[in-house]
C-alpha cells in the first residue's frame, strides 16, 4: 500500500446472489463473469465487494492489517450483529488475540508432530479399501464409502473424541459453513437443530470428554503450560471439530472425483504414487472445497482504482482465484504435471488452514491404499452435489473400479 492518489473508479455492479442454488451447484460461469468484470465487483444484492482474480484475492488474504477477520469471515458483520456462536479464536480473530491460539495449534498439527499418525493411518486406509472392495464389489459410492468414511475413522480418534455422537460432526460442520452465507434456505433448514448440535460439540471440547493422547489433550496441555488460557482451550478444540471434518471429507471427494474423471491422470498417479500429495493439492485447486470467505475493511482501501469504504464486507472467491487464467495455465484442467503450489484453496497468510498437513496425510493414506488395489477407477454416473453456502460439497460419487488382478 502507498499513499499515492489514484483516480477512483466505480467498480462494476452485479446483483447476482452467489449463494443461490444454481451458483452453488455450478460456480464456474459466475466465477468467469466476475473475474472478467474487473479486479473488484460490487455485489449489490448483499452490499459487499467481490474479489475473484488471483492477484487481488491473494493480496487480500495476506493483508490482515487492512482486511480483518474479527468482524466475521461470513456475510454477517460482527461489528453490528451478534455472532451465532462465540467467535472462533482462530478463524474469526485478528492479531494480537489470534497469535497464541494459532501458535499452539500450529505446533500440534505441524508435520513433525504428525509422523506417528502416518504410520497408524496407512494400514487403516488399506483396511478400509480392502473392506469396501470385498463387501461392495466394483461399483460403489466413493463419497460415502471412502471420502466420508476414512476421515470419520481416523480424525475423531486423533482429536481424542469419545465413541458417542460422532454422527453429529458432519451436520455441525455443514451448519457452521452454511452460517458464513446469508440466512437463506440452507441456513433455515438446520435452524431447528442448531442448539442441539452446538451443545454436543461444546461438550466434546471439555477436557474430561477427551482422551489423554489426542490433539485435544495437547491443546489442554498447552493451557496448563500457560501458552493458552484455560478459557481458550475448549474453543481451540472446537476449531478442530468445526474445520477439520467436512473440509477434508469434501476435499477427498473432490480428489476422487478428479481422478475418476481423468483416467490418464489416474494412470499417471498409479505409476508414480509419490504424486499423492500433488494430486490432493491439485484437486483442492481445481475444485476448491472451501469456495469463499469474507473479510472486513479496517480502513478506506483502494484496489485497482476502486474504493472500498471502511467497514465494508469483501467476499473473496477462492475457487475463482484458483482458476484464474492470469495465474494458471489451462486452469480448468485437472493436471498432475502441474505444480499447484501457491493455490489459495487453503487460504494464505496468517489464517492459512492450520490443519492442511492433517488433510494431506489423510489424502496420502487413502490415495496410496486405493492405488495399490485399484487398476482403474471411473465415474459410473453423475456425481450428486450437496449444497452448502461455503463448501463445494458432494452427496454421492458413484464409481466403477477394476481391482488389481
Amino acid at each position, binding site marked *: *500500500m502507498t499513499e499515492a492518489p489514484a483516480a477512483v473508479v466505480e467498480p462494476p455492479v452485479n446483483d447476482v446472489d452467489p449463494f443461490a442454488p444454481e451458483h452453488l451447484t455450478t460456480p464456474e460461469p459466475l466465477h468467469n463473469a466476475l473475474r472478467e468484470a474487473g479486479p473488484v465487483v460490487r455485489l449489490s444484492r448483499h452490499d459487499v465487494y467481490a474479489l475473484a482474480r488471483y*492477484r*487481488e484475492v491473494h493480496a487480500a488474504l*495476506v*493483508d490482515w*492489517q487492512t482486511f480483518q477477520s474479527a468482524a466475521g469471515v461470513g456475510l454477517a458483520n460482527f461489528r453490528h450483529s451478534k455472532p451465532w456462536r462465540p467467535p472462533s479464536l482462530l478463524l474469526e480473530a485478528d492479531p494480537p488475540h489470534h*497469535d497464541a491460539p494459532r501458535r499452539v495449534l500450529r505446533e500440534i498439527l505441524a508435520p*513433525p508432530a504428525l509422523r506417528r499418525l502416518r504410520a497408524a493411518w496407512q494400514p487403516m486406509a488399506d483396511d478400509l479399501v480392502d473392506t469396501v472392495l470385498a463387501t461392495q464389489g466394483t461399483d460403489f459410492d466413493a463419497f460415502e464409502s471412502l471420502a466420508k468414511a476414512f476421515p470419520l475413522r481416523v480424525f475423531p480418534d486423533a482429536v481424542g473424541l469419545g465413541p458417542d455422537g460422532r454422527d453429529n460432526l458432519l451436520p455441525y460442520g455443514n451448519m457452521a459453513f452454511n452460517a458464513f452465507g446469508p440466512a437463506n434456505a440452507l441456513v433455515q433448514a438446520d435452524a431447528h437443530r442448531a442448539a442441539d448440535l452446538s451443545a454436543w460439540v461444546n461438550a466434546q471440547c471439555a477436557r474430561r470428554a477427551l482422551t489423554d493422547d489426542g490433539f485435544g489433550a495437547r491443546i489442554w496441555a498447552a493451557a496448563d503450560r500457560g501458552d493458552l488460557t484455560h478459557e481458550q482451550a475448549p474453543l481451540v478444540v472446537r476449531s478442530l471439530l468445526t474445520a477439520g471434518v467436512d473440509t477434508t471429507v469434501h476435499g477427498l471427494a473432490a480428489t476422487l472425483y478428479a481422478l475418476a474423471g481423468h483416467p490418464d491422470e489416474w494412470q499417471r498417479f498409479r505409476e508414480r504414487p509419490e504424486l499423492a500429495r500433488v494430486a490432493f493439492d491439485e484437486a483442492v485447486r481445481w475444485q476448491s472445497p472451501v469456495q469463499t470467505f469474507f473479510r472486513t475493511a479496517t*480502513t478506506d482501501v*483502494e484496489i485497482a482504482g476502486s474504493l472500498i469504504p471502511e467497514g465494508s464486507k469483501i467476499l473473496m472467491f477462492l475457487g475463482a482465484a484458483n482458476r484464474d487464467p492470469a495465474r494458471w495455465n489451462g486452469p480448468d484442467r485437472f493436471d498432475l504435471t502441474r505444480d499447484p503450489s501457491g493455490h489459495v484453496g487453503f487460504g494464505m497468510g496468517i489464517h492459512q488452514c492450520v490443519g492442511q498437513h492433517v488433510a494431506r496425510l489423510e489424502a496420502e493414506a487413502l490415495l496410496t491404499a486405493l492405488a495399490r488395489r485399484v487398476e482403474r477407477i471411473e465415474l459410473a454416473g453423475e456425481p450428486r452435489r450437496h449444497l452448502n453456502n461455503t463448501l463445494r460439497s458432494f452427496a454421492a460419487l458413484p464409481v466403477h473400479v477394476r481391482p488389481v488382478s
Partner: protein
Amino acid sequence: MVVHNLLPTAPLQQHPSTVTLQVQDKTPVADGVVSLALVHPDGTRLPDWTPGSHIDLILPSGVTRQYSLCGDRWDPYTYRIAVLREDSGRGGSAYVHDQLMPGNLVEVGGPRNHFPLAPAERYLFIAGGIGITPLLPMIHQADVTGADWQLLYGGRNRASMAFLDELAASYGDRVQISPQDECGLLDLEAWLSQPDTGTKVYCCGPGPLLTAVEAACSRWPPYNLRTERFTAKALTEPVHRGPFEVELCRSGRTVTITPDATVLQALRQAGADVLSSCEHGTCGTCLTPVVEGTPDHRDSVLTEHERAANDCMLPCVSRSRSARLVLDL
C-alpha cells in the same frame, strides 16, 4: 486511505533463503545504540511476525547477528531493530554502527520467534539495557489487549537506555525506569517476592540479570517466567555460505545448491516433486525428511527439539551446515 499496490508477495516471487532489505533510516536512540528501519527495495510486504521475534542480519563478513524486532507489526512494510555497539564482539555491531548507512542493502533471515507472548491477566516485563527490544512490541500488545502490566527497565545510566521517551510518552506510570547510577541494581526481591499465578514475567537482558530473576522467581509456578538472552547463543557453526550438495536418495540424483538458489528451487529443477505453499518457512508444506547431513534450519515451523533432531527440513528457506545433505526424495 490506503492504496493497495498489489505488488506480489512471497509466493509469487522466487524467494531465496534470505531476503535483501534496504536500510531506510538509521537513528541514534541512546549512547551506543542505533535503530534501523529496514524495508524491501521493491516496497513489498515483509513476512509477518509476532512480538518476541528476531531476524538474522547477515553481514558481508559472513557474521550473522540476531536482533529482536521492536517496531510496529501493523506496518507490514518496515522492520525496526535496535543495535548496541559491542566492542568485545566479532565486529557485527561495529559494522552496523560504522558502515551500514541509509540506502545500503543488507541480507536478512527470519523472522523467527522463540520468545512468544502468551496470554495473561497481568504481565511484569523486566528489561536490562538493550534487552528492552523484544519487550517493546510485547508491551504494545499487552496494552492493546487491555492486560494489566508494568515494565521494570534497568540500565547503566539514562543516556545508555533506549526508547525512554517513547515509553514515558506512551505509558507513563506503568514504566519504572531504574538507571543503575541513580537507583542501584533492580530491586527484584520487591517485585518478585510474592508469586502470582495470574502474572507472567517476561525478562530479557544480560546473563546476570536473567540469573537473578530466575532465582527470585524460584517459588513461582512453573511456566510463569519466560526469558530470552539478548546475547543470542553464539552461532558456533557459521552458516554455510558456499555451494553444497544435496543427494536425492530415492532417485540417486545429486544437485549442487549455489548461494543464489533455494534448495527447493534446485530440487524442482532436478525434477523432484516437492509441494510448497508459502515459500517463506512458515507453513511447513515442503517439509522433507533428511537422511544424512546437518540442515541449517532457517524456518519458523520446527521447534528447537525438532531442529536438533536434524531428521527433516524445510527446503524453501533452510540450507545446509554440512557440505552434503541426503534427502529422502
